[in-house]
Structure formats: C-alpha cells, structure tokens
C-alpha cells in the first residue's frame, strides 16, 4: 500500500528498525496482521526500550549494509520506563548532529516516538522513510573506511 516506487535498476533501500516492544513493535505486528504490503528490504530488531539503542549500534548498522536506521519508541510521556525515552530522543538527536558532521546526514536516521504504534502508522512512517532514502547515494566509500576501524572489525 505504502510501498515506495522502485525501479529494477535501484533496489529498495535497506533499513534496520529498532522497535520498542511496547509500542512500535506492536505497530509492526499490526501491519503484519493486516497484511499491509511493504518492501522486503527492512529488518526489525525488537528492543525493550528505545533508550536501549546505543548510538554505536546505529553506526554499526550503517557500516554493515543499512542505508538507513529507524529508532522507534513510545510517545514522549508514555514510556513504560518512566522518562527513559526522553533521554533517548536527546541522545539520538545528538547522533543526528554527528551524522551530519561526518557527511552521512541525519536523513538516514529516522526517529519515531509515538508515531508508529498502529499498523497503518508503522507502514506510513516506514514507507515515507524508504521513499526519502531512495534517491540518497550508497554509503560505499564511508562504509569501507568505517569497517576497517578496529572497533568495527
């Protein structure tokens, strides 16, 4: 339904989704139960809370083949773990600055807090993100440098 347009030449961008299991994972599940058609190029890693996602993991994902990373949690004020997702938002925004600085661009990091807890919302948020990633170039050169760093080997 919300599948981005793709051509044969350019495959759909690859996205790694970190989904909080109290919110966005339920949205992803609902999208599945409704059989919403989505491109097969995203993978979901369930996490206990969005605050659990290390900035490092986002970089690692970009280094190991993802064109974009989505971090999805509960709406601000609705975190199961008190105010943990407020802290996560700040951290991820700071990571966005870092991505801009090193030339990857914060457009490759999607933050969704409370916007993906229904099936159609999950599909829409992800579909829009995939559409936005589509025209972006491959991260090949950057990936080569990063993958050769000792920390990522």
């Amino acid at each position, binding site marked *: 339904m919300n599948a981005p347009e793709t051509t044969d030449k350019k495959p759909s961008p690859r996205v790694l989704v970190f989904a909080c299991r109290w919110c966005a994972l339920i949205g992803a599940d609902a999208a599945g*139960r409704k059989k919403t058609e989505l491109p*097969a190029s995203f993978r979901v890693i369930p996490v206990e809370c969005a605050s659990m996602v290390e900035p490092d993991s986002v970089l690692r994902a970009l280094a190991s083949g993802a064109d974009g990373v989505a971090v999805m949690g509960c709406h601000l004020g609705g975190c199961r773990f008190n105010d943990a997702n407020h802290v996560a938002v700040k951290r991820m925004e700071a990571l966005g600055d870092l991505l801009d600085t090193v030339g990857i661009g914060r457009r490759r990091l999607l933050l969704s807090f409370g916007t993906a807890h229904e099936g159609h919302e999950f599909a829409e948020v992800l579909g829009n993100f995939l559409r936005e990633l589509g025209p972006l170039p491959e991260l090949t050169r950057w990936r080569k440098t990063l993958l050769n760093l000792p920390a990522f080997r």
Partner: protein
Amino acid sequence: MPGVMVFLCRCCGRIPPTVDLLALGEKIGREEGVAVVETRDTLCLPEDRAAMLRSFEESGASGILVAACSPYGKAGDVVTTLSAACDGDRSHVRLVDIREGCAWIHRGDPAGATAKAGDLIRMNLGFLRHGKRSADAVVAVRPECIVVGAGSAGMAAALSIARAGHRVHLVERGMGGGGMLKLLSHVYPTDAGAEEKLKPSLEAISAQPLIVFHAKTRVVAATGYAGDFKIRLASGTGETNLHVGAVILATGAGVWLPRGLYRYGELKEVLTLMELERRRREGRESPRRTVFIHCVGARCPERPYCATICCPSSIKNAAWIKRADPGAEVTILHRDIMMPGAILERYYRGALEAGVRFVRFAADAPPVVSGDGKVENVSVFDAINGVEREIAADQVILSTPLVANADNAKLADLFHIGIDRYGFFREDDPLHPLETRQAGVFICGSARWPVASGDAAAQGEGAAMKALAILGRERLSARSLSRLPEGKLGHARIEDGFCSGCGNCVAVCPYEACALQKVGGALVSRANKMRCRACGSCMSVCPNGTIQMPEHNARAVGAMIRRAFSPREAR
C-alpha cells in the same frame, strides 16, 4: 550435539507460498552452528509442540530457534513452553517472526521475503551465541511496614496490615490520627457525623498492639528497595531508624485558601467550606440567607483540575442549612455540578427537593459579592436564563479545591517516585493506580488525587493489600516485582574492573538503580538489582560497555546488526 536446533513452522500453509521454506531450510542448514533444521506444520498445536520439545530434548542441542509467527501471537506461548523446558532460561530460546513480520507483508516479493526470512534467522542465530542469563536477585523481606499519614487512607491501610499480623509504623506529622476528618462536621453521602465515623478507627488503632503510632514525626531519610527499606524518622524528641519491607504514602492533601477572591479575608461573612464545617461542628446556626460559590480557585488556569470533593461537600452543607431551617434561602452558584455515580446523583436530587436553589454562571462572568462592611448582595449573570440576578445574602461560602501538600515534593524525592504538575503523587500506570515507579512504595488517598474519606479508606486498604503481597513473603525476588515476570529481561550487570566511574548510567537511570560507590579507593557504579527494571538505558550510555543487560547485551545485538543484510549480489 552442539549447535542450535532450528524449527520452521509452515503455519498450515500461511507462510510457505511467500517464503520458500524448503530453500530457506537448506540455506539455514548450511549456517555455522546449526545442528539440524526441522519443518513442522503447526507449532502452536499441542501435538507438534510436544514433538518439537521431544526432539529438542533428545538432540541435546545447546539452543533452539523457532521461526513462526509473532511473539504477540501463539508463538509467544511456544517460547514460554520451551523456556520452561530450559528451567525458565530464555537465553537458549529465540523466536523469529517470519509470518507477520515477513511472509504476510511481502506477498508481492517472494524472493525478497525468503531472503529476509533467512537474514532474520541468521540474525537470531548470532544473538543466540551471545545471549546470557542474569541470575535473579533475591532478598530477605522485613515483615514490617511504614504508613506515612494517619488520615482515612493511612488508618485503613495500617489497620489492614496489622490485622494481617504485621507490625506497622504509623507516622503522623500532627498529634493524633484522623486527618481531614477531624476538620469536618459530617461526611457525605451518608450525612454521618465525622466524629462518630472516626471513633472506631481511632479506638482500633490504639487497641492494636502491632501499630506503633509516631505522632509529630516526619520522614527525613529513606534508602533501600522493595522488601528492605531503611527509613529515618525525626520528631521533637529525637530520631528513630526503621527497617521496613514496604512503604505506604497517605499524606493527604491541603485546603486552598481563596485569598483576595470574592472579598474573602475582607468581609468576615465570606467563609470557606472548611470554616463552615467548623461552625457546624461547634453547633453554630447559620444565618437565613446563604450563597455558595463553586469552583473557587478550581478549573482555572493555575489549577485546571476538578477536585471532585467540593461539589458534594457544599451540597451537603446547603441541604443541611435548608433542612434545619425550611425558611432559609440557600443558593448554589455553580459552573457545572459534578456529582458522579448513582449515590451522589441521588444526593444532589435530595438537595433540589429540599429547596436548594441552583444558578449556573459562566467561567468568564463570575459572581460579584457586594456589601459595605458586611455581605449584602451577590450579583450573578444566570447563564441558563440569560438574566442578571441580585441575590440578597447574609453569608457567602466559597467552595475551594484540595491542593497537594507542600511536603509531597520532598517525600517524592526521598522515595524516588513521581509527582504530577500539581504536586500530587503520580501512579506508575493507570492499570496499577496504587503503585509508584518505585517497587514497594504505594500511594493512596488524597495524596494521589482528591478523594472523599470513604474512597480514601478503600484506597488505603488496596495499598495495604499491595504491601502485604510483599510483606507476606519471606524472600522476594527481583523478577517477581515485574508485572510481566516472564517477559522481563534480568537486570543490569556491571563487569568488575572495567567501570571507570563516569556516572553516565547514574544520570540516565529512570529508577535510580545505579549509584556510584567507592570500592578500593575508586568510584565504580553499582546497579541495584531490586530497583532495576531492565530498560537498558544504562547500557546505551556506558562508554566502555561495562554495564550490560545479559539477556540483550551489546555483543548479541552487534551480531544481529552484522547479519541483518546479506550482501546484495547473493540475493
């Protein structure tokens, strides 16, 4: 047989047409660390599940991976069964959702779906290699309880716990028990005398040997966790240290004084409801003409809430004045009448029948009290009939809301619980209204939201039951404090020798479970296992990965990330 056993579920043909299970099985079978791949029809049915368990136990494989539906579906039960077979150890069991998360959303792209299913399984195989299990923490429970505040809620809580056979420390900042009931003359909706209502409870408390009453005492320090709190009390005579298993906060609320509104403080016939209650208790008669004004200082920008108790209380007094003297003129000026429930609605009808007059005004056109030296007139624009009314009055009663105690912020800080923007204690979850974000600390009565004495007592008894669930055990495990003990990850673990004491985890922990301690001259972080709710905030800010959730550690997540996307040319 070392390695992981992989089970693929056909889900009666709801997965295969999209995901090619045959090709998938072959591909997974070649993966490193996979002992055997089996495909079954319906893993959710008992026969298939039993067969799966049997072949897993016979194989002696080190781990098991089930690729089936989503954890929110039947597969969740499958995992529970498997975990039970591994002594509740989930670190060897992994569920991969290839139905909702793959087959059902990629029906237009079978090749992509099969590749994705393969990637998902490989990711989770990687996870299984590094998944660890954290041992459950168990503490001995102190079979005593502290109840702060001896009002309706606190007394009910203390009595319930004492009757169950546990010692209770009932701490009161004033002299005796009773709380706000001591200030009232009668209580709605029964119109029973407050004193008669209070007497049995006060007698029961003094007769109950298990209740230790601490009058004129305040809580000054608190440390610890569910099952084992250390609390210091201070009174005029000195300090007392308590060692209790659970905490109940029943500190009630305060009365708001409408200084400067409706000429309160200027004309002595303008009273608050509380002052009227005192006069009624003293047996003083009311003058002939009374006007009540509702929502004074409530439902306004500073306090947008309805305090729920003011409408019934003023209707109670209005009906009393009218019944005592049928010739009296009693008018209630209100914005809305809030009398929820069958009993209060009947109570309101009773006041109407007794002859109390109700006039509605709009929030932006409040009544004006006039008079020279004494109350003479109240003018109000009747919002329903659209006419200006002049009501002659001998006294004006202002119905004001309850406000949070100023102490609440300090207590919330001591016990690490939340307060809302108006200063009331915050419940952790609407489905657990007496619990706070700190396990073992419970709230009840008007300290959490304004309630009538009967409701406060009901909440007090509820909080007592919650506390008894802890006090009644000899030993308490950290996992049992979770509302979803099966699903909870263990708790944060700090590797000794690597913590640099930076304090990032202390700053970020939403439950104040992490704290810096001096060990051998250096500061290191320590995670309190009873407080930790396993959100994982700490592990994402640790600069060197010292603090980890064993069930969801960085290595396991890293293994997942590395395997998430197989190289494009292979697809």
